């Protein structure tokens, strides 16, 4: 009985601990650009771009514009995507059509928080677009399927927007 209670408490503690803000948007940008954050720019989501983004995400993008920060060929994106029911905030850095860095900035779901670990996020290092998909398979995590799907979609979106804003 005691062991069941202990395991239950451990599981509750783990699921609660997965929620939180791991890094503020500001801190992510400061880290990315060595405290010299450039002025932000926006890309308006309309026409064909809106359709392409819908295809990538699997649903319409909830917003009319996306903000990004661009300096010395590197672009930083702070994007949100629903995991299961709550939005997960991702910070993505792209450079030369490739992923340089992916971080979970805020996680609000009760399960699936494992996607924030570098052991998982490093799968995206140097990932590129192949059509409108990533050029590689991303291994899933048991119990975090929707969070993995959200991260994969958002990284794909960042690469697509990187390419779009470079045209």
């Amino acid at each position, binding site marked *: 009985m005691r062991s069941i209670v202990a395991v239950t408490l451990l599981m509750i503690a783990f699921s609660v601990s997965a929620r939180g803000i791991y890094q*503020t*948007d*500001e801190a*992510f*940008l400061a880290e990315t650009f060595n405290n010299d954050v450039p*002025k*932000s720019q*926006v890309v308006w989501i309309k026409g064909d771009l809106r359709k392409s983004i819908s295809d990538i995400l699997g649903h319409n993008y*909830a*917003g*009319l*514009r*996306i*903000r990004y920060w661009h300096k010395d060929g590197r672009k930083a994106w*702070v994007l949100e995507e629903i995991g299961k029911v709550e*939005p997960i905030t991702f910070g993505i850095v792209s450079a030369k059509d490739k992923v340089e860095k992916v971080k979970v900035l805020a996680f*609000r779901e009760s399960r699936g928080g494992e996607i924030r670990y570098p052991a998982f996020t490093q799968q995206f290092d140097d990932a590129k677009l192949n059509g409108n998909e990533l050029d590689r398979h991303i291994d899933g995590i048991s119990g975090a399927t929707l969070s993995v799907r959200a991260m994969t979609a958002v990284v794909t979106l960042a690469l697509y927007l990187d390419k779009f804003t470079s045209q």
Partner: protein
Amino acid sequence: MNRRMRSLHRSMGALVALFVMMLAITGMLLNHTSELKLDQRYLTWNWLLEHYGVATVEADAVFLLDQKVISQFDKQVFVDAQPATQVQRPIIGGVVLDDLMIVATDDALILLSPEGEFIERMGSATGIPSQIQNIGLFHGDPVIQTRDGMWRSDFLLEQWEKISLSGISWSSPQPMPDIVETDLAEYFHGKGITVERFILDLHNGHILDRFGVWFLDAFAVLIILLSLTGLWMWGRQLR
């Protein structure tokens, strides 16, 4: 003894007759739901809708921006009765700036189009001062009050300068207009309660919630007593 029993029997009979008539009428109506289209008609009596808890909705915050009503229910933000976006923090005010509606939470500004479409959330990463306490307008420029002081910007909302001004028109909460409340009630509760549901609830006692079950139990006991007193008197007559 026989006279007393007859008197009790008559009183119980009158009481039971009322309920039997009610059950018979509601039962017949339910038998003809389709023909009478009871499942397509909706209650319109406000006191009855209030009894069902579908007449009103209670927003966490309401602000009137130009001709639009901005309201928040938990994390969902509505423009009039249409869901616009979700926010993690409570809305504390809003202003209209050129062709933008700007809604403030304590950590961000939410930009909405005049039609109520969500444009973007601007947080501290875009230069918005943090710990916002209120938002207002000063000669058409957006002004926000933070714990750290007062800040003014322009329509781009990207550069904020610290200022000290008076005469600012601050945003303040407003009551929900009735027409929008009605629309929101329909959004949350659908068209409301069908006449069929109401008659069914009358028939099975659920109209009185948990008391309805006890009420029907009491009615059943009355019928049993009525039967027993009737049998007893019939038995006496045979002797």
